[in-house]
């Protein structure tokens, strides 16, 4: 099956904008809807949490809109709400990210509130305690949730002693220990200009965007102060771990090596992952675990690419009595793929899906903004969207074999189960 790689898959035109003050952003102009969607990411995420203060970056991300500049928390939220401005901050292992959505008519107010949140967050003590209480309640709420405990145990086993092994949301003890000084220091270290990536989509002129960029981000400190995060690899392959929970179904997490997004083998690994356990109903795991045997409602794998490591991790959940069978099926599918590779037809169909579906990720302003920020964050280049389908289309069987060797290795997995699995 051949396909046209010329197919228009992304937004028509991505404009690199540099403000007079030197703030860079990628812009997509669209007047279809009278709104502006902005995405941004600062280098440095939960992996920057001080030891014993895990959860600090997430707490910081939740406090930026809880009072800034002249406004206390309630006044700040009121200013957002009165114009229906949506401002959110998120933390991931490597980044402090955020997004802003506003009607064009209120763009000035929206960017100004973003400026205040980034440059002048107050960290008022009552807001700190409120957010702490919310995070602690969230941790208690999920304390025995099978999916949550399985994921936590998985990263703890896979990256012991490394920041990537700590949960971004922290623990009861670490969240209780975070001080206002920790948050102020973290904010000062991370919210800086030099590694900042910004994308803006919507009904805004280039000149207006440049003006907003300077006003919003221009006065931030030039450089972040980042703790070095050591390169690491997933360990514990070949081991199995059970978190005991009195539930009729076990959640299973399984994982092996990965390939980072910046690695030349990423695209072949991505195609391989699609064949094994990617999002479509056609993947081998979906067919064998769900369709043929009814072992689970959801099953799949995804590539995880962090700054200093990469892994592939899989998920499923099956009743306790059938966990052994389920693991056997997953193990044998991985072994088959590792030994025989995909068929030519399977490979062509996977490529057809991945190239054809790329455009589906660009159908809203917010999605476009997030995609652009992610591409910028990974340093893939402003032309990546144009190049990406060619990269997928060029993947051949030898590329898949190379990726399979790196990703699947000897087929041994780190396996974590939460439940009461009936296994020997």
């Amino acid at each position: 099956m051949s396909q046209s790689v010329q197919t228009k898959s992304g937004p028509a035109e991505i404009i690199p904008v540099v403000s007079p003050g030197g703030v860079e952003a990628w812009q997509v102009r669209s007047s279809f809807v009278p709104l502006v969607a902005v995405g941004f990411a600062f280098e440095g995420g939960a992996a920057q949490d001080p030891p014993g203060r895990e959860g600090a970056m997430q707490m910081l991300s939740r406090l930026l809109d809880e009072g800034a500049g002249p406004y206390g928390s309630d006044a700040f939220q009121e200013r957002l709400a009165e114009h229906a401005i949506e401002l959110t901050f998120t933390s991931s292992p490597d980044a402090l990210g955020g997004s802003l959505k506003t009607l064009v008519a209120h763009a000035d107010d929206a960017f100004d509130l973003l400026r205040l949140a980034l440059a002048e967050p107050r960290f008022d003590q009552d807001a700190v305690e409120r957010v702490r209480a919310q995070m602690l309640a969230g941790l208690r709420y999920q304390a025995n949730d099978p999916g949550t405990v399985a994921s936590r145990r998985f990263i703890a086993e896979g990256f012991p002693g490394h920041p990537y092994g700590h949960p971004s949301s922290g623990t009861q003890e670490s969240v209780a220990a975070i001080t206002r000084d920790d948050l102020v220091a973290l904010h000062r270290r991370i919210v800086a200009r030099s590694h900042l990536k910004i994308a803006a989509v919507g009904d805004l002129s280039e000149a207006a965007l440049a003006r907003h960029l300077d006003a919003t981000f221009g006065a931030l400190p030039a450089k972040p102060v980042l703790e070095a995060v050591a390169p690491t690899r997933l360990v514990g392959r070949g081991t199995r771990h059970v978190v005991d929970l009195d539930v009729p179904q076990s959640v299973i997490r399984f994982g092996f090596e990965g390939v980072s997004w910046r690695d030349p083998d990423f695209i072949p690994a991505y195609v391989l992952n699609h064949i094994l356990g990617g999002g479509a109903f056609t993947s081998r795991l979906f067919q064998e675990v769900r369709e043929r045997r009814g072992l689970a409602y959801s099953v799949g794998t995804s590539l995880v690419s962090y700054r200093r490591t990469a892994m592939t991790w899989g998920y499923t959940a099956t009743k306790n009595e059938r966990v052994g069978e389920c693991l056997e099926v997953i193990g044998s599918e991985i072994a088959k793929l590792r030994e025989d590779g995909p068929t030519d037809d399977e490979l062509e169909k996977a490529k057809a899906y991945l190239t054809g579906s790329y455009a589906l990720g660009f159908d809203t302003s917010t999605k476009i903004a997030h995609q652009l920020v992610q591409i910028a964050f990974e340093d893939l280049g402003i032309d990546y969207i144009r190049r990406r389908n060619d990269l997928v289309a060029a993947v051949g069987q030898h590329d898949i074999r190379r990726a399979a060797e790196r990703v699947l290795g000897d087929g041994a997995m780190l396996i974590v189960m939460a439940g009461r699995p009936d296994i020997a």
Partner: protein
Amino acid sequence: MDLRIDAAPIGRLEGGGPELSTHRLDNGLDIVVIPDRRVPVVTHMVWYRNGSADDPLGRSGIAHFLEHLMFKGTAAHPAGEFSKVVSALGGQENAFTSYDYTAYFQRVAPEHLGRMMEFEADRMSGLNFDEAVVAPERDVVLEERRMRVETDPAAQLSEAMAAALFVHHPYGIPIIGWMHEIEHLDRDAAFDYYSRFYCPDNAILVVSGDVAADDVVRQAEATYGRNAPRGARPVRIRPREPEPRASRLVSVADPKVEQPTLQRLYLAPSALTASGNDSHALEVLAEILGGGPTSFLYRRLVLDTGAAVNVGAWYMGSAIDDTRFALYAVPTESLDLDELGRRIDTVLGEARDAFDEVAIERAKTRLVAETIYSLDSQSSLARIYGSALAIGETLEDVRSWPQHIRAVTRDDLVRVMETYLVGRRLVTGHLVKDRA
């Protein structure tokens, strides 16, 4: 077959609704087209006017189980072929079941729309699968229920609360069905249900994205146009909920619970059962009471008194029959749920004084802005219009929604609060730790 144009294209409003057009085929299939030419993507959805609330007694979960079985092949196309084609064309697909409707969708490049229509029209009347696929698929649904409910005490509380709120109406039965009834659903049950509800006269085709309305209608005519009509739309038999008298408390205690929570459900009229503008007023009431950190309950219970760490409200107006208005609260560590409930009552007692013009305006602004933000997403628009038509609303109802929201007054808010947020309409839910 000729096609009838029922309504002229509805023009673009000033910052209001999208530019959409509607048609009806001779076999009764309703069509809505919502153009969005920004990217070469179309969302193709078929909505059926039946959901879990139409499950026959003793066969709870059949609407949802059938939705799964709709991927198991037809006389013309064996199991999995449709999915393989969607995938090979770079498309995405899925389906969902709700109380009042069931919908199937694909998202593809516009040149593949016709293929999607062929397959979707084919399974509207040609469903056919082996007995052998039924048992594994039922196991999939049982695992889905284990994942969503059997391993989650909070979901068990939600089920128990709905069952207590709706003493007579099937909204009290979970969409996925009760475990012991799913276990006995079979091929016959699925086909009984399928032959009752799946026909063009009971379906709505919604296409949004990079398409022109006349192309969509032409392609629909060539595909869905071949599906024979039933002649009359299938009848939904829905008992009416009696006037409630009793305040109810249900509680789920589980050793796995580490964070107690409180939920409230009030029986409230829906967009279809409400008289006057009660439904629009309830939308604004939910926003003003519990729509985020500037809402009245959040300010009083979280910011001012610290009784709760979080609190909110929502209203499920989109329903055929009487529906839910909900409050939820997560208490601060030192407060038990009974005391939290008393604090909520005290605050609700003061709420009418808090409905000042600024707060009302803020709530309306946020609700109306959501409709403008939704214009940015072709799949959101397809869902908004599809779900509205599937429950029996008109396009005009959707289009005029912002004006109706803006027209809600302080008196309306007081009236609906005092009418519907009352003890005899209330089911309280407690999620607590079982320390036994």
